[in-house]
């Protein structure tokens, strides 16, 4: 075990710091994911509306998110807004904003796809039963959409969690940054610490992401 360098994690408060770093990542992810799911459902529904100007705006929004690397978005929101407008956005807010901005667009697109995949006959049957548009969406379309969405959105959510490692670029010390700090601080005494520490970080990410995918499996079965 010694030469894997896991022992450096038990020096001083190292392991607690690593867990604090993990919480920072998880906190940013949870907040962004919750916002993305709620607003993504709204944006996705809007994307299916037959309004030309709305479609154009949402298309531009989605393309911006697709084209821009998250790192660039982080720099624009954190440094750019200060430079151009003089706003002093905190690093956490900037991170949550960027991840939500990204999540809403992709989630919206997934929702759009799921709604579109619902056969037309479902709408027609609902209308035939005398439901209005709102009722149709709420009672017929949305429940079916959500079931189709689960596996798709799990990919997005776990991707968002893993991408939070980028926030170190705007000064937030999250789990991966703490890992690098620990490895560097012990570069001389345990040169091989990188392997052990990153293995533990891998395990931590796994512990966070695995329950989400189990939950998805459970929900898929339950709602099937």
């Amino acid at each position: 075990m010694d030469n894997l360098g896991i022992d450096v994690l038990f020096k001083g408060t190292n392991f607690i710091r690593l867990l604090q770093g993990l919480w920072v990542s998880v906190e940013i992810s949870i907040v962004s994911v919750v916002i993305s799911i709620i607003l993504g459902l709204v944006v996705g529904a809007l994307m299916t509306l037959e309004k030309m100007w709305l479609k154009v705006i949402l298309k531009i929004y989605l393309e911006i998110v697709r084209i821009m690397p998250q790192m660039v978005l982080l720099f624009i929101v954190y440094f750019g807004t200060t430079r151009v407008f003089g706003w002093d956005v905190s690093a956490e807010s900037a991170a949550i904003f960027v991840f939500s901005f990204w999540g809403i667009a992709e989630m919206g697109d997934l929702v759009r796809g799921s709604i579109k995949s619902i056969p037309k006959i479902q709408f027609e049957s609902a209308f035939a039963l005398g439901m209005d548009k709102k009722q149709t969406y709420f009672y017929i379309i949305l429940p079916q959409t959500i079931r189709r969405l689960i596996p798709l959105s799990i990919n997005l959510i776990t991707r968002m969690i893993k991408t939070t490692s980028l926030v170190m670029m705007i000064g937030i010390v999250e789990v991966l940054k703490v890992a690098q700090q620990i490895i560097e601080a012990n570069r001389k005494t345990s040169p091989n610490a990188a392997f052990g520490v990153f293995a533990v970080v891998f395990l931590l990410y796994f512990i966070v992401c695995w329950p989400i995918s189990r939950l998805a499996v459970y929900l898929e079965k339950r709602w099937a």
Partner: protein
Amino acid sequence: MKNTFVKRLTSGLLVTGLLAASLTGCGGASDKAAGDDTTAQAAGSNAGYRTLDEIKESGTINIGVFSDKSPFGYVDENGEYAGYDVYFAERIGEDLGVDINYVSTEAANRIEYLQTGKVDIILANFTVTEERAQEVDFALPYMNVALGVVSPDDAVVESLDDLGADDEVIVISGTTAETYLTKNYPDIKLQKYDAYAEAKTAFENGNGVAWANDNTEVIAFAIENEGYTVGIPSLGDQDTIAPAVTKGNETLLTWLNDEIKTLGGEQFFHADYEETLLDTYGADYEDELVVEQ
């Protein structure tokens, strides 16, 4: 913990909601978003930087340091910042009579941090270059860097002119060592590696007769690994490392320069070296690396 979490969730929702609202065409929302985004800790009246008085008044100075570049700026096992740069930063805080808020910076965002005034001083092993001096203001230097060449004890390379036609020198791609050797010694064959670890392994396996890199790196390597000597400790142009402030922040720059001069009088940076760098670089290179005004 829970309260801040909920607060962040609601503020995040609010901001994103406003964004979505403006995206979906509810005009007029953008002004409001501007108001909400600006947090309480607005940066003083001089958009861009805080003057010396503003820093003193606020009671806290924001200093950007590396958090994973031992022994210059790193975090020790108790979660405290430490290192050569941090030792100096601590003294700045003490002499200004303010608390220090350390900001963890990366090599790539040091200039951005200063230009947006998100930190007051960068003390992150910042090498003075002409290009950078156009973007930020450098104070007086507190350390020297140059290139160095390390080679095995049994065949020490003391001058690059001694190299034979078939001798290859190891460099890491994209470093100043590569640029310098390509420009000034076009005849020397270079073996280029992308990462430090690869170059190190190749050198240890004897793939090249010597390894050229920043002199701090090769000195540390020779001390950590038996059987190697730094034959050329200082090659090419001497560069310096200095604190940097936002361009135009005269009051802070003047104070920093005065501070560095005063500290020179008490040989502060030698004390700093002995406290933080001695273990890595040994006593032999102290005068080579430290600059006092």
